[in-house]
């Protein structure tokens, strides 16, 4: 096993007529997926390049998944570009990426033509229906190795310049192994995909689908404002496994939508990407007894996930969930500021080692060498670890507890404050639907933004009852709805820059 296309091909062999990917309008079988992807691969291979970036500019739809595999067939790696992203930002990414080609569809022709890049423009409609060069495809595969890049995903860097984490085949193979054995994904699984493909969480949905030979259903984004419709759609598609961001799960629980439309076929609810408010989780658990719930943790730079916790006991609404322990074939170490390993209970930065690690940031050696460093506990041979920038500690049960982003930990009047702790306290209140705490460092102010029909005074009472005075927010801002970023997570950057206008 050295190339993820082996998953796709094996599934096409066993289940040729089974739907691999569906969206609201399309259904693509495994046989079609392989044929179209090989046609795309043959057309892109005419460029004669290897291990080079091809940008894919399409909506999140079943065809876009075929497009990604097409790029892989050509011996290159794909870079998912959010078609709704402003052109200026795409051009900034392209400056770093210098794609050899952009693969788009007729729908996005105008947008693609307006972008600045030197590579060629390919259209999905033409390439996917063109001829397949079988000997050419074989030749490319024979040369491929498992450390060749598979894809790059761009995340916003703190400086505003996006960084593209490059992930190789081996990382995804190791990751998919872990998912399958941990969650028992098999050929009957029906994924209900929420996360867009330019977001690392979608890697779980996509690759465990093709590995198991099951089906991935892209849930229409517009239904996330119509929870009842969404749940009905999931039932229609027999969705039994979801891996969503907590904000998406909260949409359902805030409206108590499961009271109206139950999900009898659901077996697994996984979540990651931000802290899951325990109160929201408790609603889901109360409505879905016997369903597996798991809190997953990890950044894009280690494929998707490095630690996980399968919920195995009750949590009070104001208790935080652990992030658990390391995935199989992945190791995590907790490092203190002085470079030594933290003792149980001690706080330190979570560092990850093993096959899940990205190759680095594309065309950015400086950022790469800051985040991917020699394992501080191993002076004997070269071994990289990825520094997550997240602070954690082990609890008495030997489970990892997420504390905060290193940059979210603030100091005020000599006290060290975790903004996440304030959020957990406030989020446990019944009428609070969502909340986010930000630190306005310019004005030295802790700001709590919350959604829910509850007056400021009542929120203050809760804060007083639950938190020491030095942790009390200076300002409370009530909003009708939380701003979300394109991934569906609370948009903290936006809150920080514009909370005073909300």
């Amino acid at each position, binding site marked *: 096993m050295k190339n993820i296309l082996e998953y796709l091909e094996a599934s096409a062999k066993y289940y040729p007529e089974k739907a691999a990917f569906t969206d609201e309008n399309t259904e693509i079988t495994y046989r079609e997926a392989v044929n179209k992807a090989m046609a795309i691969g043959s057309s892109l291979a005419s460029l004669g390049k290897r291990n080079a970036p091809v940008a894919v500019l399409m909506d999140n739809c079943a065809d876009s998944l075929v497009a990604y595999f097409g790029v892989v067939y050509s011996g290159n790696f794909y870079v998912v570009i959010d078609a709704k992203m402003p052109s200026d930002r795409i051009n900034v990414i392209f400056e770093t990426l210098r794609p050899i080609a952009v693969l788009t569809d007729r729908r996005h022709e105008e947008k693609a033509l307006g972008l600045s890049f030197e590579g060629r423009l390919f259209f999905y409609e033409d390439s996917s229906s063109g001829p397949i060069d079988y000997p050419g495809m074989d030749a490319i595969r024979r040369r491929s190795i498992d450390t060749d890049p598979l894809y790059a995903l761009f995340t916003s860097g703190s400086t505003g310049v996006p960084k593209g984490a490059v992930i190789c085949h081996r990382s995804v193979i190791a990751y998919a192994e872990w998912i399958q054995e941990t969650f028992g994904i098999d050929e009957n699984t029906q994924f209900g995909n929420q996360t867009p493909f330019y977001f690392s969480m979608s890697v779980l949905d996509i690759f465990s689908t093709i590995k198991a030979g099951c089906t991935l259903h892209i849930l229409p*984004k*517009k239904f*996330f*404002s*119509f*929870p*009842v*419709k969404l749940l009905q759609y999931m039932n229609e598609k027999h969705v039994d496994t979801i891996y969503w961001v907590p904000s998406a799960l909260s*949409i359902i629980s805030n*409206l*108590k*939508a499961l*009271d*109206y439309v139950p999900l009898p076929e659901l077996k697994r609810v996984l979540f990651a990407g931000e802290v899951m408010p325990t109160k929201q989780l408790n609603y889901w658990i109360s409505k879905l007894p016997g369903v597996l719930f798991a809190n997953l943790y990890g950044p894009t730079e280690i494929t998707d996930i490095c630690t996980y916790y399968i919920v195995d006991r009750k949590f009070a609404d104001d208790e935080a969930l652990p992030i658990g322990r390391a995935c199989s074939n992945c190791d995590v170490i907790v490092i203190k500021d002085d470079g030594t390993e933290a003792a149980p209970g001690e706080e330190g930065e979570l560092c990850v080692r093993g096959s899940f690690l990205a190759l680095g940031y594309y065309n950015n050696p400086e950022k790469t060498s800051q985040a991917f460093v020699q394992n501080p506990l191993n002076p004997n041979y070269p071994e990289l670890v990825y520094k997550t920038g997240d602070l954690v500690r082990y609890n008495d049960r030997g489970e990892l507890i997420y504390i905060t982003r290193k940059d979210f930990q603030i100091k005020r009047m000599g006290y060290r404050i975790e903004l996440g702790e304030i959020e957990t306290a406030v989020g446990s209140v019944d009428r609070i639907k969502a909340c986010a705490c930000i630190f306005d460092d310019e004005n030295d102010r802790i700001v709590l933004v919350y959604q829910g029909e509850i007056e400021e005074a009542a929120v203050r009472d809760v804060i007083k009852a639950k938190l020491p005075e030095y942790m009390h927010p200076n300002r409370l801002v009530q909003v*009708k*709805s939380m*701003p*979300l970023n394109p991934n569906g997570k609370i948009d903290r950057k936006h809150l920080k820059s514009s909370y005073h206008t909300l």
Partner: protein
Amino acid sequence: MDKLLEILEDLKPGVDFALEDDLIEDGILSSLEIMTLVVELCTEFGIEISPLDIVPENFKSAQAIYALITRIRDED
């Protein structure tokens, strides 16, 4: 109806809500904006909207939203 149009224009300036007849399919209202709208309708019109009524058909145009408000008021 005027009050509703005012709310809609506040939510998303620059759209002719009196004329648009497919706010959802045409992607004029994002999921976040619909959630915001639901909360505003509840406070401004003093109604409670059940999740069962939060469906695209009831939000596809200003007329549809108005019909929803009227129906909920009549039921009360």
